């Protein structure tokens, strides 16, 4: 089974490392790919596409050097492959308008305000990844122990008559 990717887009190395540390518990089945800005993130997305690896989730900061996080997510959402990717904005600096644009145009799935608590981020990411595998994965069993096991098991019970 090929692993899925979580893409973390954050320019400050300290913050980026903190996010990656919080998401460590997903690592047996999800590879965490760091990116420091939108350009870097797009390169990572292309690389994943070339390797046939699917990106399940993008956790992006809004205030990035160059293209802003919200614009980046809107661009991703407009591509065929990007539509299915779950998108979380992790930011303290997105204004009212940016936030509205993110929800309406980027298909934003969740907004986490900085500063965040590790437990909250884990539960948000767990929910998003569970949604993703329920929508996109045929075989749910491998994810039961790492994501929301109860929801996955209910789906397993439902899938066959």
């Amino acid at each position, binding site marked *: 089974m090929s692993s899925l990717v979580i893409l973390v887009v954050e320019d400050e190395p300290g913050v980026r490392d903190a996010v990656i540390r919080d998401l460590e518990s997903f690592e047996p089945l999800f590879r965490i790919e760091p990116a420091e800005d939108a350009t870097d993130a797009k390169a990572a997305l292309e690389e994943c596409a070339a390797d046939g690896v699917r990106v399940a989730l993008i956790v992006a900061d809004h205030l990035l050097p160059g293209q802003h996080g919200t614009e980046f997510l809107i661009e991703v959402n407009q591509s065929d492959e990007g539509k299915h990717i779950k998108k979380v904005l992790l930011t303290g600096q997105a204004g009212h308008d940016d936030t509205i644009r993110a929800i309406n145009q980027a298909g934003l799935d969740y907004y986490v305000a900085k500063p965040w608590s590790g437990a909250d981020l884990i539960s948000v990411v767990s929910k998003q990844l569970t949604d993703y595998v329920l929508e996109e994965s045929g075989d749910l*069993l491998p994810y*039961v*122990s790492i994501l929301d096991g109860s929801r996955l098991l*209910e789906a*397993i*019970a439902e899938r*066959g008559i």
Partner: protein
Amino acid sequence: MTATDTKTSESASTRRRVGLGVGLVAFVLPLLIDIPDLSEAGERVLAVFLLAIVLWVTEAIPLYATAALVILLEIVMVSDQAVVGLPDGLAVPEYRTFFNALAHPVLMLFLGGFFLARGSSKYRLDRALAGVLLKPFGDRPAMIMLGLMLITAGFSMFMSNMATTATMIAVVLPVVAKLDPADRLRPALILSIPVAANIGGMGTPVGTPPNAIAVGQLASAGIEVSFAKWMALAVPGVVVLLLVAWWLMGRAFPTVTESIDLGMKADFDRSNAAKIFYVTFAVTVALWLTEAVHGLPSGVTGFLPVVVLLATGLFGAEDLRRVQWDVLWLVAGGIALGVGVAQSGLDEWLVGRVAWENFGSIAIVALLAAVALVLSTVISNSAAANLLVPLGLSMALSPAVDVDPLLAGFFIAIGASLAMALPISTPTNAVAYSTGEVSTRDMARVGLIVGAVGLVVFLLSPLFWSAVGLT
């Protein structure tokens, strides 16, 4: 199943190549070599049988594909449509005989079971019932576990073992996650559910595919087993084994937790659709249990919920498409194989290989159950039953062997369900293992003991049956 998922694609393709290669050799040999005392038709069915063994064991092609292949090969090799005609003088079955397996009454019985199970999940009858039934068991872990096991077993008599296990573990998992990581109650609660589902599945003809395979092939041989009759044979053993398994697991997994709350509510869906479903469910089960009174075969009754739920619009085309046709076809493949074995005279030849008259009937039945148990531990329970039931019935129907065919079929089905030692043994185990709460070691320990105890419990049950005048 997990077995196929976790293996790398490389080893899967090796397995496929080996399976197909060995299967081809096994298929060709009986056709090339003249086997003394075996008719031409018998040799051809033997070829199909050997191919089926290799393919069902190696899973070189999917189980249901092998089942379909068996039906096709029988039609083109030993029916009146055989490509190379059979020598004159042999009774040749019509090709329809083999297609009929796909619509065998036992498949209709199973289809009814699927519809009831799907409805239970759709209208959350399973959750609500579990909430009601679990209440009297209080909050002590041992009692909760007993309640969970009894309810799981009861559900899995009518629903697929796998769906029941997934549903019940989904209920328990949030509670388990809050327990102390070192508490042995964690693996105990999770493991109790597949164990109970495997045991409960033995209880009715629709409980699990091996039962349907046994009932279906018995029917093809002219022996009708009613729903109630199967239950009467199986349920006493099921109850005893459940209690033994519960007691064993309580001892094997001591806990310090004093009380737990599963937080289950008895929220019954009160919509009209749900009420129609409840009535359909109750009437179907009542008709199944009272076949002796009204005489309607269980397969006909099984078609009733199918018609009612589709006609009332409770179930749509989407639900119909979601029927697990792969499971039904696998059962059909076994039935077709059994028909071929019996019609071609292969059965007499096979039985003639061993001097069975030297064995007691209990020894033969025990052997069948034990072989089914061992085989099902490593391959699919249904595939094992598909291969063993034709052999067991051949034996039991032969005048040289003193075994009741009903018992031969019954014990193969029971043996197949007792295989629960490994995560790959059954989908129920795979579900429990996926939670990460149960180690392979714990699973093997409990599975082996419950399997062995189950074998003893069920082999003793003929004594009980004769005491109450059942057989």
